[in-house]
């Protein structure tokens, strides 16, 4: 597996950066994600962080060195991330669970699978066109689909930030799963928050990433988005990967054949305003039995 990857997250003109980005890869599988925390305060950031840690953690447990079923993996990881956010709210007595958008992509054996909730996007760029992209879970997207507004209206629509699906919050997320997408050499897979695609639009994303070395093109793309974003520029986050398939290139790409089967390389922003209890995401039959045994053991200990 050969690819070049670059990620960056900038604060824009906001007081804090509530976006989280990460990529992690084993010898055979690559995971990329962008989470954009919502809510205007610390909690959005926490939701994005929890989702990132849970999903990356699940990936590292299961991609040894590949995932049995990428779609199934995505489904479980996103469900668990959602529940982990609810658990956090539960533990901290928060008035409501914090929220975050999510877009996650798995690349394995020459194909890509992705899943998303909210308006963080994934683009597959191929030969100067958009070969695939996610469909935002947003009011504006819905209005567009129903033909109620025109694309140029959408760009300035006052409710363009309103989304109806996310992880956390008080509703079950609506998560869309992509079919398997076979990658071709030189394809670019880019995941980004609305702080990036918002100012640039599809055309700007395409123009910015189509050719050249993504190690240089991505920072330029972010510069442009930040300039266009102006004095209210949102957080800007992107993970972009150029696929080299089996061919060799002139750019310094990552060659994962060299990794041991259980070796992972992960790039994720550090975050120290919260700590998570590890693994408290699922509640299986075994968990129930264990909880009961634990309680009964405590009862016996204290009733002596």
């Amino acid at each position, binding site marked *: 597996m050969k690819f070049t990857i670059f990620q960056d997250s900038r604060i824009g003109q906001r007081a804090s950066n509530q976006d989280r980005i990460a990529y992690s890869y084993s010898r055979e599988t690559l995971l990329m994600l962008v989470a954009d925390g919502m809510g205007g305060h610390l909690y959005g950031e926490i939701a994005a962080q929890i989702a990132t840690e849970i999903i990356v953690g699940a990936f590292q447990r299961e991609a040894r060195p590949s995932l049995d079923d990428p779609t199934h993996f995505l489904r479980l990881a996103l469900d668990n991330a959602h529940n982990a956010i609810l658990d956090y709210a539960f533990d901290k007595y928060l008035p409501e669970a914090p929220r975050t958008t999510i877009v996650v992509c798995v690349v394995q054996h020459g194909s890509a699978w992705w899943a998303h909730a909210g308006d963080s996007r994934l683009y597959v760029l191929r030969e100067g066109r958009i070969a695939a992209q996610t469909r935002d879970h947003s009011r504006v997207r819905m209005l567009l689909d129903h033909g109620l507004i025109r694309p140029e209206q959408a760009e300035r629509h006052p409710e363009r930030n309103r989304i109806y699906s996310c992880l956390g919050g008080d509703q079950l997320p609506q998560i869309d799963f992509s079919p398997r997408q076979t990658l071709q050499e030189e394809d670019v897979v880019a995941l980004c928050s609305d702080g990036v695609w918002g100012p640039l639009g599809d055309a700007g994303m395409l123009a910015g990433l189509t050719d050249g070395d993504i190690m240089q093109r991505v920072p330029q793309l972010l510069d442009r988005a930040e300039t266009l974003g102006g004095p209210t520029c949102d957080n800007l986050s992107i993970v972009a990967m150029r696929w080299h398939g089996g061919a060799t290139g002139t750019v310094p790409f990552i060659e994962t054949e060299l990794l041991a089967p259980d070796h992972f390389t992960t790039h994720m922003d550090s975050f120290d305003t919260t700590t998570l209890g590890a693994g408290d995401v699922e*509640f299986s039959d075994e968990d129930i039995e264990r909880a*009961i045994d634990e309680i009964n053991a405590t009862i016996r200990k204290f009733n002596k």
Partner: protein
Amino acid sequence: MSVLANAALPAGFEIDQYRIERRLSHGGFSIVYLAHDAEGKPVAIKEYLPNSLALRKEGETAPHIPSRHQVAFRYGMKCFFEEGRSLAKLMHPNVVRVLNFFRTNGTVYMVMEFEKGRTLNEYIQKHRGKVPERFIRAVFSRTLNGLREVHSHKMLHLDIKPSNIYLRTNGTPLLLDFGAARQTLMSEQPMLKPMYTPGFAPPEQYTDRENLGPWSDLYSVGASMYACIVGNAPPRADERIQVETLLPLTERKPAGYSLELLETVDWCLQLDPLKRPQSAYSLQKAVMRREEGDALPAGLFADAESRLRSFIERG
């Protein structure tokens, strides 16, 4: 659908090592039964059965849980375990004791000690407006003993009210129903809103839940003392924030109560958490303060005082 309530297990039904005698109470989250263990000792069994997520018809033993509610049902179960886990660690004469925990019939059960008595609520209803100060001080100083134990385990009760304060036949109170875990169901589904009892819940329980703390339970203790004196709950805190409708007891001046006690209740019922007593201990000191010539049976507080001493020594 929402009007459908879950059918209780019938009398004589055998479950684990227990035999059900009758239903004691029925909440939105659970059913509590009076049962007997193999040796004939009475116990209270709480069955996890959230009305909004699971339905059990008459004559059935296991509830039906629609697949769309599976996740929420499991999540609620986790909260139910939280309550059990918390209670299992507490061993205090004024806190209800958990005896056993088991799983059957597609749900889970918590077995608690059962003692003869009645709730403070029943007592208030019977002696409306005539609950003596001496009784109030005695009941609440001991209830606060139990609450201190709860708080020292870094837990909050969050549903203190007269119907959750149980009076044994010898008069000593027992704190029941640790709903704290239940509170947290709010985030899963809109239908699992936290349950609290209007009038007894502090303002921060409605809105700024990050401000919850020991002072939140103390608001509820104050509201319960208020109910003893006035005969009903104080106005809801969420409404008091909009327009203050509570006439402080020190202005209301009900006959037969010392100014000190009325001041203590007013202190607890402050909307601003910082203006309330900050610890169960400080409130307990105020509740235990005795007037000259107040004939209190010395033995009543003996246990509380020794505990206070040990607290001071530790601190």
